[in-house]
């Protein structure tokens, strides 16, 4: 019976593959001719071209357009209708009495968003790395139903940011689940998303909840790559658990921690969707972050200013480029270290 099944499967496979093979042969002759004319380097360019075309249309071209927009003024959407203003938009963004006091700046919202983003990045990154590390350390232990717990922590990563925002809005709103629990416990309900400090804290907690599974996974992989022998050697050496963590686990996990740190930084600087759904940047401007500022100035406000939004996005892009270069540098160093071990 199994033989018959295998025979049918083989014949079906052959029937499917036959036209594929025929098509491949069809391309054989022209590709061979092309390679004769262009050489193997030319062939590489030929095969890269479709991807480069997509990259050009959807990444490179918008980037160039964005730079051009940042040097134009007015509310018109099409570049041809816009007036060239040089670096005026950048000048406007940087026109400040004191950068520490957004109210003294021409574009006060930009600086409010910058400072909010900066505080958010510092707190969220610190919290994300700490929670991811603790989670990874716990998940690396011999737990009952370890795979289940790993899945539980990773599950939020699979959710769309909008879904994350909505879930937590339902939990944190005035008549949400959390307040219900607080009330049932005899406490006084809190306006989590209306009080400034609570709303800001909520954005940090929610973004950590949503993404910590991904970073835990990176750290977990790092922890599992540390040879067990080292811990046994440390045990023979009479090393106390805390010292094992500081002197063995942490240094050997440092490459992964650095990767997590930089990736978290990049993501935190870009924070937008879940916070936009959760708080809409409020109350007031207390959770207004840079990406939301760019979005609102460029598309959502009554007096939209695509040039100013473009200038702000170019500045933010520059920060991200620096962070990405750092990340690539770390990845390269880790690779070299890996080769040395």
């Amino acid at each position, binding site marked *: 019976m199994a033989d018959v099944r295998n025979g049918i499967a083989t014949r079906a496979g052959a029937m499917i593959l036959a036209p594929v093979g025929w098509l491949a042969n069809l391309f054989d002759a022209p590709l061979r001719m092309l390679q004769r004319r262009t050489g193997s380097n030319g062939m590489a360019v030929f095969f890269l071209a479709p991807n480069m075309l997509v990259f050009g249309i959807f990444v490179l071209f918008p980037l160039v357009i964005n730079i051009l927009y940042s040097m134009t003024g007015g509310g018109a959407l099409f570049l041809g209708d816009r007036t060239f203003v040089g670096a005026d938009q950048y000048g406007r963004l940087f026109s400040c009495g004191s950068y520490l006091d957004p109210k003294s700046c021409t574009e006060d919202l930009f600086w409010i968003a910058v400072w909010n983003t900066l505080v958010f990045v510092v707190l969220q990154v610190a919290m994300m790395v700490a929670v991811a590390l603790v989670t990874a350390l716990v998940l690396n232990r011999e737990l009952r139903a370890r795979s289940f717990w790993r899945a539980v922590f990773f599950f939020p990563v699979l959710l769309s940011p909008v879904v994350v925002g909505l879930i937590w809005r339902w939990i944190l709103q005035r008549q949400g689940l959390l307040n219900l629990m607080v009330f049932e416990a005899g406490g006084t309900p809190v306006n989590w998303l209306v009080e400034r400090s609570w709303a800001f804290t909520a954005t940090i907690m929610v973004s950590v909840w949503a993404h910590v599974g991904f970073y835990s996974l990176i750290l977990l992989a790092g922890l599992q790559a540390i*040879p067990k022998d080292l811990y046994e*050697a440390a045990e023979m050496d*009479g*090393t*106390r658990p805390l010292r094992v963590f500081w002197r063995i686990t942490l240094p050997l996990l440092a490459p992964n921690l650095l990767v997590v740190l930089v990736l978290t930084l990049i993501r935190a600087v870009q924070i937008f969707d879940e916070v936009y759904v959760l708080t809409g940047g409020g109350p007031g401007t207390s959770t207004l972050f840079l990406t939301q500022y760019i979005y609102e100035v460029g598309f959502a406000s009554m007096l939209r200013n695509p040039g100013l939004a473009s200038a702000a996005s170019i500045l933010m892009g520059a920060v991200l480029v620096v962070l990405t270069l750092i990340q690539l540098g770390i990845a390269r160093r880790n690779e070299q270290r890996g080769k*040395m071990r």
Partner: protein
Amino acid sequence: MSQITLTGVSRAFGKVGVLHDINLDILDGELIVFVGPSGCGKSTLLRLIAGLDRPTGGSIAIDGKDVTTVPAADRGLAMVFQSYALYPHMSVRQNLAFGLENARMARAEIDARIAEAARMLEIAPYLDRRPGQLSGGQRQRVAIGRAIVRNPTAFLLDEPLSNLDAELRISTRAELAALHERLSATMVYVTHDQIEAMTLADRIVVLRAGRIEQIGTPLDLYNHPANLFVAGFIGAPRMNFLPVKVAPGGTGRSSLTLDGSAGFEIDGNVSAANGDVTLGLRPHHISLADAGKGDIAARVALVEALGSETIVHTRTSGGQTMLAVVAGQYPVASGDTVDLKFDTSHLHLFDDTGQRIAVR
């Protein structure tokens, strides 16, 4: 003084028993080698002694003190791991100092111990390098150095030479033997390589499937293997085995019959139920004789000329493969018919349960 006593030690993982009723006395200053095939439980036994694992039965004592439940760090032992287990982010010096710092030893004392170990193992030039910058042999020495600086009651070595190439393994083996001589320390050494066991051990413990098959000096095991397993495991090339019929011979002699026809007599009486026994003979105790002058005829299947000796693989008319090792470069080729002559003073007999039969 550092004597290790294992009494009725067993270890099971769930329902699977890995070690069964191990009883062993490791004497002070002795280099004892646990040897056996993969999965025989030798590394598990070492880990139990180290305290990295707990036995499910029995007890372990060091110098008469029960340490069965004592943590690894408090047993005063040092271990050299198969993978060396050097901390890759620390320099050699830091690797050596790590255990001593844990014990809060004074810096001057730590430095003195490191200097002494570095001198002994000739690793002083590498003290500021990281393990990744060292060769396999150098790492091996650092791993031993890390054990030495702790001045342990006993050294536990888990297949320490298995990651080295053949040449380095031989030289490091000699260095280890010299080190044992110099330190006079108790060493428990695990290996699957019987040559390593034979060359290093004061005594060898042969393990199979979690049980001790035999304990003895290397030559004890070679000359008087307790059973077929030990006879086959110790010695290279491995011992030849032939099924033979034993019957009383002349006065005080026994007659052995091979292949139903060829046979010879040996001194002593052999008692075996229904007369079926297994004859064991090491390849070095078989010589090639002129036609008609040997004990059994065989066809040469393969010749391995090693220069100093020739290993001749033969097949008897009964279908048994037999190896003979003859000194020098013997003129013989595949397909030749030869007569094998047995040195009957070195033969071994085993009963149908595989146990050695005493020839009285």
